């Protein structure tokens, strides 16, 4: 991918770093989802491509060259318009990259009307028309709505779980272990494992007394139906399974491009349904990844992934010492990791992002990285709390 990007030559500098390689968000927001499209093309998402796949990837990026150069030009225009409007909110790459690429696809390279168009796009990104946390809160506060949502939750929880695996059936665990041995190479039969319902089978065990608590997903002995919720605070969120519908949605909603009440209603309904499903996640691929994460969180010797996650903590001792942060223990890291993974998978589901086999290792590694960085911040805070 790096070689293919370098081969694009001039015109993509705004999307590239000092060595001409793609920026982190260029890869995350443009190349992966819009050019490579790993869900449709899993063979292009493997850590190590076959010769044929490497050729195909190179051709794909080269074929998108004009779009990418135009997107780079649109991004520069959008940044100019942002500056002209004295907007400082949000990361411009995060907010504009995908818009710039869409503009490039729609309009080609910027022309004489470009500033106007880029300005409208920036206005749209920063407009208040989108439904946010406050709108969600007041929507759910309506007694009629709250009653309807509570009814939807109750109906979802009353329905029997679909085709649970027989207790004691180790097949789902074997499939998960196999995925954990293969995913770092961008491989593994995620689709087959999901089709067999392995994620659900493992997830249903969380209904047993104490299981969800042990996994770090609840403080309750058995997960209970979520409340609709009237208040939510980022700094005082309960464990994932103990969160109200409001608490599950209010952080993500601002990023979801929801404009109409109909869309909002559908979002809340889906959330009510999801809360009764295994892992409280709607998609089977996400449940498989959670089951895999919960298994790998042991950081034992059993799978390639669990060894790799453990290796990250071993590196962390060295890095923290080099940063003069003391060493510190990783107590509770496994549960924190499963929670972080849940939040990320839930977020992907809200954004309708599907999961390819090539995403599994990045999701697991990314969630653990995030936990490691949180622990680092906590050590910093403790050190200076005189």
């Amino acid at each position, binding site marked *: 991918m*790096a070689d293919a990007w370098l081969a694009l030559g001039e015109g993509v500098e705004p999307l590239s770093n000092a060595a001409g*390689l793609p*920026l982190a968000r260029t890869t995350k927001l443009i190349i992966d989802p819009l050019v490579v499209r790993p869900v449709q093309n899993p063979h292009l998402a493997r850590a190590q*491509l076959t010769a044929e796949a490497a050729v195909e990837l190179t051709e794909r990026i080269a074929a998108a060259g004009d779009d990418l150069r135009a997107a780079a030009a649109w991004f520069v225009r959008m940044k100019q318009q942002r500056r002209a409007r004295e907007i400082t909110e*949000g990361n411009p790459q995060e907010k504009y990259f995908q818009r710039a690429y869409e503009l490039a696809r729609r309009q080609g390279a910027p022309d004489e009307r470009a500033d106007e168009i880029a300005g409208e796009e920036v206005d749209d990104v920063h407009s208040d028309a989108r439904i946010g946390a406050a709108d969600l809160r007041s929507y759910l506060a309506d007694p009629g709505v709250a009653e309807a949502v509570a009814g939807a939750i109750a109906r979802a929880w009353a329905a029997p779980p679909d085709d649970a695996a027989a207790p004691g059936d180790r097949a789902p665990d074997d499939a998960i272990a196999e995925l954990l041995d293969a995913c770092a190479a961008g491989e593994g039969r995620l689709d087959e494992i999901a089709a067999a319902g392995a994620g659900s089978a493992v997830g249903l065990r969380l209904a047993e007394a104490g299981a969800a608590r042990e996994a770090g997903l609840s403080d309750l002995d058995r997960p209970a139906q979520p409340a609709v919720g009237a208040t939510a605070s980022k700094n005082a969120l309960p464990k994932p399974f103990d969160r109200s519908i409001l608490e599950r949605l209010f952080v993500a909603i601002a990023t979801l491009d929801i404009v109409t009440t109909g869309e909002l209603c559908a979002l809340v309904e889906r959330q009510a349904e999801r809360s009764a499903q295994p892992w409280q996640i709607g998609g089977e691929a996400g449940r498989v990844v959670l089951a895999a994460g919960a298994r790998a969180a042991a950081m034992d010797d059993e799978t390639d992934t669990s*060894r790799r996650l453990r*290796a990250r903590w071993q590196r962390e001792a060295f890095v923290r010492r080099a940063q*003069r942060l003391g*060493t510190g223990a990783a107590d509770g890291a496994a549960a924190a990791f499963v929670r972080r993974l849940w939040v990320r998978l839930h977020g992907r589901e809200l954004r309708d992002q599907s999961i390819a086999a090539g995403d599994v290792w990045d999701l697991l590694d990314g969630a653990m990285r995030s936990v490691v960085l949180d622990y680092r911040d906590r050590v910093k805070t403790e050190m200076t*709390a005189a």
Partner: protein
Amino acid sequence: MSVQRISDGWLIGAEAEEPWLVGVLECDGATLWWPADGGEPGGLVWDAPRASGWIDAVFPGTVRALAAAGALSGVADDGGGQARTALDGPGVAGDSDTADDADDAGGVGDSSTGQGSGAADDSRAAEHTGGHAEPPADAQAETNDGPLTAPARAAALGAWLAAWWPASRIAGVAALDPRIVAAERVAALASLDGVLDDDGAIERALEDCAGALAAVGGRDDAGAEPLLRRVAEIADDYGVPLGASAVRAARADDYALAAAGESGDAALARGESRVDPLVLPAGLVDPAAAVSWSVALGAGGATLAVSVPAAPQFAGDEAPRAALVALIAGVEVPLALAGDVWAGAAAVPATFLSAAAGADAALTVAGFAADQPESVGDEHPADILIRIARERLARGESLAERLAR
């Protein structure tokens, strides 16, 4: 770059020294280090396919060497027997499970062999790298720099400066300007976007820089202006407000000698021990100083008084806060910062005098778990840091160091 199979990945270049003697940069798939004394860099490649996208821009020729060594083939070829990690220098905390590495040295590689025939994978790797899979023995490092060598080195050593710079009144090592240290790190990291392990590393560095600017104020001298303008652009690019635009001329810290420990005439016992900077967070205590203690008898009984000179701060910067405690013969004495000195006192029983004879005074900070003594040679760690700092000042590799000369 030489490449060597180890239990948790591939060691490239020089092995890591003690963690307090290297600047570390966490990249996507590899952790790299540069010794603060200017020695040879190295790294641990823990995900070779990921690292292969950028590592040649930092260490040219590494992808070819990794491929030749089999790191990009999914096949372990280490011939077994290597049971250590790259980072298990004596300074690394010995978690109980790191001891298990001896058992899984081959396991990491073995576990990925099931993905297809080794021969097919080898040929893929060869094709991927343009057919240059040479025997490992020939895969020598190329010594020329890549386009990201300088920023990677600057980011890594910038982290070392922020953590381990031994500012000392006693040794005459000036404090570095925290704004410049942070700003140089921001500029270096921004060049490395797409290469870093943490996608938020640049934002984090910008927040550190904003914190330093808020604490010390702005700086408008000609030497720092291009750097600070560049950082302002980066802040704009990443949507992190830098805040403090207040312009204030910076003044080098003066070197007034710290007040020595109280020398009460009535001391029944006294002692002093050198500060060990390795067990303390940055910026608290003068690393060249000694912890002094004395016991005096007063109306209320015996009192143990402890003092130690504080580290000099950059002009206008606040001293970091920490719960610093001195430990002498089993007695803990909390210390408070008063001017240039940390000092405190505690009542002790009369029996303390016999226990304290010849006792060492150690400093600790709650929350800073330096859980084992680090192995050092005959040279005191503070002396090592100060020697490196003086050499670095003479070289003047970074703007922060040049401004501190």
